[in-house]
């Protein structure tokens, strides 16, 4: 059936909560990349 209910607006907080794991994982990966690139470039 069609969705006629007004959905609750989800903001940045919801987005960050939903993807918090991926945000942390991305930051960890970014740190590893910076360390690796810095190490091989020294």
């Amino acid at each position: 059936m069609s969705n006629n209910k007004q959905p609750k607006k989800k903001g940045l907080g919801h987005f960050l909560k939903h993807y918090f794991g991926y945000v942390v994982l991305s930051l960890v990966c970014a740190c590893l990349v910076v360390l690796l690139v810095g190490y091989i470039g020294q």
Partner: protein
Amino acid sequence: MLEYIYNFFADVDIPTIVARCLLALIVAVFYFVAFYYAKKRNLEAIIYVLTTCLVVLFGLSFFDIPNFAFYVYFVLGFCALACILFFGQDVQRDIFRRAWKRWFNKDMVTEEYGHEDISKSVNEIIKACQRLSKTDTGALILICDDISDHILESGTRLNSEVSADLIETLFFPKTPLHDGAVVIMANKVVAAGCYLPLTQQTNLPREFGTRHRAAIGVTEAFPTLTAIVVSEETGIISAVHDGKIQRYLDADQLRKILSYAMRLTDNSQLTSIWGLREDE
């Protein structure tokens, strides 16, 4: 590597810290985009592969491996290329199409066509859909502001006023134009018998035939347009927008959807009609 990590946090000047932070931020955004689309497309395996590759490379950096720089650049470059190939189209679609949709949504109510003209067209489309539904005649109608010329060229140009009789006639079985889509643009039937790209989704219900798949496919490629589908097997009227499908529509629901599609209602109606996307 241990020595490098120790030196990494010692004796660094401000420009170096800024450069490292910027690099980390750019890489983090790249990784997050890749993870985000991997999750959205149920390709979580890519997340594990990317992370594992990086962890293995980092682990190997503690050993004295010849040509280690080559391996690092090769693996990182390969991962970046794979991500661009896998998710490039999704990113392009989300950035450009959605941006156009939000910021440059054209108003169909122009000097040439007022609200009354467009309301009349909406009524005609509803009437046509109901008649087609009663006779179990398959139909696919696209309502759009703009669409690729390739799609229009694949059919026959018409440029005629919207009328229920015309739409019914165009979908009458065994006629040359009945098998494609009718395109309604700027309150005119601009083309009929148009061929559309099919969706590549594999998890659709089996009762969705080529017509539904074409409707989903074209709305994935052009998220601003709305497709109305009448099933040939069941006569069910469905509407598709931005890859989302709503089925079993009655006249009121169809009117609401068409009014939004033809810009009789403003963008605030979007969520009440189609709900929020998973990512919103």
